[in-house]
């Protein structure tokens, strides 16, 4: 047994090395996925812009009282993307808007994922009435038309950034929950869960050690798709006038542009940039999600 | 002599990103009409790859050299039309896992009828139905079972339906890949009985693939034992099973004991180690790392298959020396 006494240290170190190798392998697969790489690059640019917003465009640019441009000026050397109806630079609005849009998207997704995963696993793992009730609840949320519910909730809760996050998070989890539930149902029947039960494992252990690690890849892949939906929803709600009026997001920009008749007056520079940004970010998250799915889905991986 | 089926020095190599992997390495074997030939070996020994070449069913990444002759014609270079004819009516396959090979939403009668209809378009509906009924009765199922869906049948019954489908167009050769592996002994005996009767009655050739030497010994006339892509022993079934020449064949034969043989009580026999990786075969005799009888020369000399006067052959240095 003398050989084994040295093992604990090296065993843990080796385990860490293995994990690093797994990450490297995953990264190699991801890199070979061209669309996913493009998506990731574009997203990185957006995130950097959002983080560096105070450096790229001073915050005073957002204040109506300090606006320097004219009303709905065309793009020029001074204002690359023109100005809005209050004389502010559209580029500044766009840069600061990306902060809110991405923040709302990510936070709402986090909420949605946590709810979806918990409900999905619980309703899949526990049969009987617990599972049945949770499943009905999921279905119930799924069949309610999503937008009216979100509008009602936003109206009731009031117009603030946090409320928008909550509204989106609370309305977008059922899809995730269903996905996780079905995955849990198949994993529950695997022989290794039976083995764990015979070893004396309770449900907490079974969920934490066996089910969660096996559904996590699916949760991650699903996250990127949900972010896209959340950003779109934020835009929609803001466009409908239910956003936080004190902050600029791409959605509120579109709402304003529409309100001042940017379409009829031909002020395209007020409408197109936020629109394009929304589409671009949503598209990129979807591309990354697809690439991630390929990296994390072991069955797709085996076929290669 | 021209048999029904003849493998002439057949090799199959899979081309992978990691280099060429030889799955079958120079196999020669023949099957005559009315003869049952067994191919034995562990998973990964190349027996299923070899069987796939009979109908040119090997994956496109596989490169086949040598000749696979069916009634004198090379299957591998055959024109597409001829190959289709061969697949329809010349030779057919029975796979293991009948549940996955049957369409779950179609009655089994319709599935058996499909090749018949395609093969003989002129046949009337009632004639086709009669033919399906006959086929089911040949495999020991009542003709009325044609109306059943696959899930209404048991494992043994589904395997019989698979055999009936294989018989639909009156093939001259049947290739059965582990047809009884998932079945209980009693059902296995039933299915083996069906196959035995078919060979006797219709004079078809049967190639039977299994990892269970005792099943092959029960049914076959001749057995070829494969290891790491090669035939290491070949001969009359009874002889190969009861008095094997090659140590690997001996190990396979001993792994299923004779019940009642006191020597096997509390003494299960097996082989240490695992089959070799085809991409990284041992030097010399590819069996030597697991061989209980290896000696120095085994590590360097690759023995060839040598036949003796009694129609037996083995690829082993010990046998060559005998």
């Amino acid at each position, binding site marked *: *047994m003398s*050989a*084994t006494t040295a*093992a*604990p240290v090296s*065993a843990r170190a*080796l385990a860490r090395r*293995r994990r690093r190798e797994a990450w490297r392998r995953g990264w190699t697969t991801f890199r070979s996925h061209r669309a996913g790489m493009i998506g990731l690059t574009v997203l990185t640019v957006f995130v950097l812009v959002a983080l560096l917003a105070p450096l790229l465009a001073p915050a005073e640019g957002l204040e109506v009282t300090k606006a320097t441009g004219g009303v709905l000026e065309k793009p020029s050397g001074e204002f690359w993307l023109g100005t809005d109806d209050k004389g502010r630079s559209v580029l500044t609005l766009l840069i600061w808007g990306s902060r809110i849009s991405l923040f709302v998207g990510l936070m709402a997704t986090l909420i949605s994922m946590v709810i979806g995963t918990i409900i999905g696993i619980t309703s899949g793992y526990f049969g009987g009435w617990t599972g049945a009730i949770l499943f009905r609840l999921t279905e119930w949320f799924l069949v309610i038309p999503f937008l009216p519910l979100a509008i009602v909730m936003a109206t009731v809760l009031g117009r603030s950034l946090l409320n928008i996050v909550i509204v989106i998070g609370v309305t977008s989890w059922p899809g995730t929950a269903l996905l996780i539930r079905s995955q849990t149902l198949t994993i529950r029947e*695997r*022989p*290794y869960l*039976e*083995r*764990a*039960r*015979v*070893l*004396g*494992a*309770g449900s907490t*252990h079974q969920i934490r*050690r*066996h089910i969660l*690690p*096996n559904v996590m890849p699916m949760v991650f892949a699903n996250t990127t798709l949900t972010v896209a939906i959340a950003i779109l929803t934020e835009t929609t709600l803001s466009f409908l006038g239910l956003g936080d009026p004190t902050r600029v997001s791409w959605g509120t920009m579109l709402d304003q542009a529409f309100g001042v008749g940017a379409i009829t007056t031909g002020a395209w520079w007020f409408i197109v940039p936020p629109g394009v940004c929304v589409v671009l970010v949503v598209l990129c998250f979807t591309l990354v999600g697809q690439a991630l799915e390929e990296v994390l889905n*072991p069955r797709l991986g085996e076929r290669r | 002599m021209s048999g029904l089926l003849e493998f002439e020095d057949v090799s199959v190599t899979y081309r992978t990103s990691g280099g060429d992997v030889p799955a079958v390495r120079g196999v020669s074997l023949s099957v005559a009409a009315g003869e049952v030939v067994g191919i034995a070996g562990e*998973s990964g020994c190349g027996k299923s790859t070899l069987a796939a070449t009979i109908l040119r069913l090997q994956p496109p990444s596989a490169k086949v050299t040598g000749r696979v002759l069916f009634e004198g014609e090379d299957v591998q270079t055959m024109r597409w039309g001829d190959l289709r004819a061969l697949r329809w009516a010349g030779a057919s396959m029975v796979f293991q896992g009948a549940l996955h090979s049957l369409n779950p939403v179609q009655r089994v009668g319709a599935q058996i009828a499909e090749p018949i209809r395609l093969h003989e378009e002129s046949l009337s509906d009632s004639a086709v139905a009669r033919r399906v009924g006959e086929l089911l009765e040949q495999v020991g199922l009542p003709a009325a079972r044609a109306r059943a869906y696959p899930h209404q049948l048991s494992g043994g019954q589904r395997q019989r339906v698979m055999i009936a489908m294989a018989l639909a167009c009156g093939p001259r050769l049947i290739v059965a890949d582990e047809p009884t592996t998932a079945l*209980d*002994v*009693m*059902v296995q*005996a039933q299915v*083996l*009985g069906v196959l035995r009767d078919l060979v006797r009655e219709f004079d078809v050739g049967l190639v039977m693939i299994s*990892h*269970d*030497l*005792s099943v092959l*010994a*029960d049914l076959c006339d001749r057995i070829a034992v494969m290891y790491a892509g090669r035939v290491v022993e070949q001969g009359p079934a009874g002889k190969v*099973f009861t008095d094997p020449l090659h140590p690997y064949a001996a190990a*396979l034969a*001993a*792994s*299923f*004991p*004779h*019940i*009642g043989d006191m020597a*096997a*009580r*509390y*003494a*299960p*026999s*097996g*082989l*240490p180690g*695992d*089959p070799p990786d085809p991409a990284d075969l041992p030097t010399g005799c590819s069996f030597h790392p697991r061989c209980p009888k290896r000696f120095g020369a085994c590590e360097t000399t690759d023995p060839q298959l040598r036949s003796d006067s009694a129609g037996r052959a083995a690829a082993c240095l010990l046998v060559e020396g005998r």
Partner: protein
Amino acid sequence: MTDTVLEARGLSVTFGSRGGPLARAVDGVDLSVRTGEIVALVGESGSGKTTLARALLGLERPSAGDVLLDGASLDRSARGLRAFRRRVQLVLQDPAGALNPRHTVYESVAEGIRLHRLDSATGRTETDLVAEALSSAGLRPPERLFLRYPHELSGGQRQRVLIAGALAMNPQLLVADEPVSSLDASIRGEILALILHLRDTLGLGVLVVTHDLGLAWNIADRIAVMYLGRVVEAGPTEDVLRDPQHPYTRALLSVVPEIDHMDPVVLTGEVPDPTRIPHGCRFHPRCPALADGSAAAVADACRGTALPILPAGEGHHTACHLVAARQGAAS
């Protein structure tokens, strides 16, 4: 060392489909396994052998009868089951599916140790216990396998890892469900030899559930043949397999390939549906002795009189009217 005995007494397990008839998968079975003994539970699929094994492990709740460990009824409380798990362990059939693909060998074997905090209970490190379990299962040197994943192992190695996982709990009894049926012929003997070796060195008792009579001949001390939820013949392996009494056992033995001294008796059909167990002797509709007239004298009993449950203990017992009549006539 005192013997530990796992016992089924009049055990029945029924499954009900909603509104449908009850399936009596196990229908009154007495069976016992003690430490240092290998018992083979033999039957075809549908005979109820796997359900019986699961009930003995406390994974199915019996509808009647009881599971006893050392004469005491199985405590089904969470704590009772936990204690039971340390003494009775399971080795599953399909080693590829029974190991979590995302866990390394080390994690899989350590799972039971962590669940029962065996390291502090024994005063040894977890790594030590894992290494010891792997070596007991014949995987040496164990450290080389610690960080492998199941898909990087061969079938035989996976089965050994599963056995190591069970051994890490230091159990007294092992239930092995078809331990070699998914393995290649050459690996089979190695795993069976391991089971024998564990019995000899650790004094383990093993219940092997299988459809393979050759396996029983290879390793089992006693054998129990199951048909449609009941044990129909039980006794020492030599007696049962060399001198089978029940027509069903005889038929099963006769169809094992390459048994030349018996004419194959191929039964028609398959094990009937456990929702409709025939009256009288449950085997009578397929019984070859009844069909060929050799059991004509007891035919009425076969069709109408149910047979008693066979006792679990020593000796060769058969649940058959014909055998009972013959023995009555002989004595």
